[in-house]
């Protein structure tokens, strides 16, 4: 399965403290391609405007600026996890492909996972000509790495392929589209219903060459390994070995002048997470992605020219089962929310690298511009036993003898979480301690990840830890988490909205956000949703999960940072194309 490939995460023998800490922070992750795109969205772009304004904003990468950047040197990226060795797979349409595939194939455009800002690739520009019609104008003069010209037919061919083989459509584009057509260098995607934020998902489908893929594919193309990849991207595959592979620069790339590395090495990760940490600490990679304890001591001070950026990549929250008493009572949820000391929870869970989460559901500061100013204190809730007591009283509970009781029965809560997500486990222990102090009888249920997934999807839980958000696009974050259309009956599996929140107000706000084409309307709808989150608390946000970028600036600079947060520092998904396009050689 996919996840294996990406970070070592839980997949490996000596599983993975680290990636686990990541867990829950969205926006990272292998199939992130799918994840992001499934949700990435229109945030910054105004669909109506011809060329996305973001395109120009994204700097030299897409700009093909005249002089270009200083070239040369080898970029070493902490590669895919070898389990136990790398499996040659450069099929951009499956989630099991190797990370380097992202530098070989390009999508039409990529939305930043920080704030949804677009950077243009195969499409020079894109716009919604109507709320259901998305039009891409393709870049001229693009060639496949075998010298054949790229055309609109390749784009329609790729979309048709996804339609024909649902197993390839991991982002579900055909759940929203009705057709994709081309005319000249214009590709038009028609939606079944207005869904502006879905732009990023459509734009981020990697485009494959029709002349090579139209015949000779195996009966099940999701099992096609594509060992001789031909793409339009800045790099081509030069060598593959089971423990590492190397890409070299595509000299004919349309933006070659702005691509600094002449070569990219992807040495495989060890299946042992702590070995990976040791490798990172000893400076084997220019760009790595690992949680490191005491990063200042273990990484920064261990060598010169090192930096890190641990931005929030998702929200970790306590999901209560909204089909059950008393969890379906917003007052009860508010009571719980006010019993929690989120700073302490964050400190235990993520070493204080990241902080408490806003109950608006927005990831701050990434999406700060969307904050509803009417919500006090950015939606941050501080521990307040008295307020909590008031809420519990409204829910019919009273404190007696240190126990929170209703009709003589103590409030109890079983929290389900996977036993191998160490940050969640640490957070859950703290949550348990704090809620117990508040008189609730808390039990932790910690099954394997697979059983956890089964439980939460089928709705077989009281409370559960979960992650949401991190796509960079508020609509996608909220839609996945709150849309009542996902709220399947108990016993039927659903990935999204597994807390089973049903609110006509929220659904209406989501619908208007999906159809909104101007920023004011988008802001208004987003505010409504934030207020729903803040007052109803369908999910109780706890803290932000991190995205763990570690960089060496010895060979290249231009990494994403707090000062220049152009995307999350995740080398294993399409963000790598964004980052590599921005690098500058040192010296």
């Amino acid at each position, binding site marked *: *399965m*996919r*996840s*294996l490939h*990406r970070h070592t*995460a*839980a997949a*490996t*023998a*000596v*599983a*993975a403290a680290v*990636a*686990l800490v*990541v*867990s*829950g*922070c*969205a*926006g990272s*992750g*292998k*199939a992130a391609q*799918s994840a992001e795109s*499934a*949700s990435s969205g229109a945030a910054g772009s105004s669909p109506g405007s011809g060329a996305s304004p973001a395109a120009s904003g994204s700097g030299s990468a897409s700009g093909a600026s005249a002089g270009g950047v200083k070239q040369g040197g080898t970029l070493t990226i902490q590669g895919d996890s*070898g*389990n*136990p*060795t790398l*499996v040659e*797979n450069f099929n951009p349409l499956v989630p*099991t492909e190797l990370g380097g595939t992202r530098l070989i194939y390009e999508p039409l455009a990529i939305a930043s996972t920080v704030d949804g800002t677009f950077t243009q690739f195969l499409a020079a520009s894109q716009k919604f000509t109507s709320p259901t019609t998305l039009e891409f104008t393709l870049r001229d003069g693009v060639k496949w790495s075998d010298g054949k010209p790229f055309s609109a037919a390749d784009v329609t061919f790729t979309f048709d392929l996804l339609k024909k083989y*649902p*197993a390839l459509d*991991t982002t579900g584009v055909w759940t929203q589209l009705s057709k994709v057509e081309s005319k000249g260098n214009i590709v038009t995607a028609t939606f079944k219903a207005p869904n502006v934020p879905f732009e990023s998902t459509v734009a981020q489908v990697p485009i494959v060459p029709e002349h090579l893929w139209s015949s000779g594919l195996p009966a099940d193309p*999701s099992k096609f*390994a594509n060992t001789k990849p031909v793409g339009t991207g800045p790099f081509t595959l030069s060598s593959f*070995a*089971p*423990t*590492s592979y190397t890409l070299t620069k595509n000299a004919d790339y349309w933006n070659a002048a702005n691509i600094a590395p002449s070569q990219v090495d992807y040495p495989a*990760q*060890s299946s*042992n997470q702590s*070995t990976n940490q*040791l*490798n990172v600490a000893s400076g084997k990679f220019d760009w790595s992605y690992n949680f490191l304890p005491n990063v200042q001591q273990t990484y920064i001070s261990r060598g010169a020219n090192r930096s890190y950026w641990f931005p929030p990549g998702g929200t970790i929250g306590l999901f209560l089962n909204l089909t059950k008493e008393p969890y379906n009572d917003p007052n009860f949820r508010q009571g719980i929310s006010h019993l929690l000391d989120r700073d302490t929870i964050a400190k235990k869970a993520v070493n204080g690298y990241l902080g408490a989460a806003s109950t608006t559901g927005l990831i701050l500061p990434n999406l700060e511009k969307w904050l509803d100013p009417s919500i006090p204190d950015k939606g941050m809730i501080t521990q307040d036993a008295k307020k909590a007591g008031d809420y519990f009283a409204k829910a019919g509970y009273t404190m007696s003898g240190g126990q929170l009781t209703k009709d003589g029965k103590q409030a109890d809560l079983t929290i389900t979480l*996977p036993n*191998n997500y160490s940050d969640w486990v640490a957070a859950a222990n703290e949550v348990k301690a704090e809620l117990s102090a508040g008189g609730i009888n808390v039990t932790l249920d910690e099954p394997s*990840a*697979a*059983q956890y*997934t*089964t439980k939460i*999807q089928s709705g077989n839980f009281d409370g559960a830890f979960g992650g949401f958000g991190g*796509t960079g696009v508020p609509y996608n974050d909220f839609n*996945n988490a709150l849309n009542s259309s*996902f709220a399947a009956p108990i016993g039927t599996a659903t*990935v999204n909205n597994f807390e089973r929140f049903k609110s006509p107000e929220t659904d209406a706000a989501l619908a208007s956000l999906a159809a909104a084409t101007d920023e004011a309307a988008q802001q208004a709808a987003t505010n409504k949703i934030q207020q729903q989150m803040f007052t109803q608390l369908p999910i109780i946000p706890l803290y932000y999960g991190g995205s763990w970028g570690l960089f060496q600036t010895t060979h290249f600079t231009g990494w994403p940072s707090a000062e220049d947060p152009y995307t999350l520092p995740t080398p294993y998904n399409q963000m790598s194309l964004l980052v590599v396009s921005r690098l500058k050689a040192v010296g």
Partner: protein
Amino acid sequence: MRYVTRKVVLFVLTFWAALTLNFALPRLMPGSPLDAALGNLQANGVQVTNAMRDAMAAQLGGAEGNWLSQYFSYLGNTLRLNFGTSFSFPTQTVSHTILQALPWTVCLVGVTTIIAFVLGTLLGVYAGWRRGTAADSTVTLGATLFSAFPPFWFGMLLLYVFAFKFQIFASQGGYSPGLTPNLSLSFLSDAVQHSILPAVTLTVTSLSGWVFGMRNNMINTLGEDYVTFAEANGLRSRTIALLYAARNAMLPNITAFGLSLGAVVGGSVLVEGIFGYPGLGNLLYIAVLNHDYPLMQALFLVITVSMLVTIFVVDLLYVRFDPRVRREVIA
């Protein structure tokens, strides 16, 4: 001939039972491959969606029919060595995945087991021969202590000291990044260099079984009449120790050797994991985490069959070592 027939019948029965167990075990367990995959995605920080769930369900395909028909098609496929496609490595067949990992484990585990066996047996012979002396106590207590080290812990320490602190050995994998496995001298020496730490871990922690077994057998054998008689006849100590006592004391250990050779394949899961070794142990753990039935079944089968086969081979060897059994086989 009855001996052979009996062995074959038992082999087939054990084989069948193992096959059936392999089939049943993963299916008796809660949790589905799809949920395992989604769980892993989430562990990687991916926000999974219902669209992804549907696509993955389509990709995984999943077993068709009821358990019984699954069972029979499983048996049929297994006999044709067709294990299908694994969920974890969809672009290659399970056989291919296993064949890639098999030589690594066979070499690592095979070599270390043989080293541990030979070294442990020699130490056991020595301790048994010099029983009651300081040398005996040193060997016995030393072996006791080393065998008590949890292998993964010992491996972790070795890894930190020799791969990270002093960087004498490679920290991970079976060979250096960029190399493609081949039989050239340079590649083999690279592979050997990579295998030293895991090999030392496995050897040191598995040595003691052989030491204790051999020491006990040796002491028992030293009480046998033929040893006394050899002594009465003034044979040299070395002749008595090796050709009379040790040679016979070894016989029970040969059978155990067969069992252990197979068992260590399974036992190397943790050590392979620690050292990121590209072997079966590592694969097995991945298969378990992913509820990867096809891979798991095939790996179990490989491990079980390798045990059955080693035991059979060792039986043949045993016939060579013990003339008393030789007659039984011929008869």
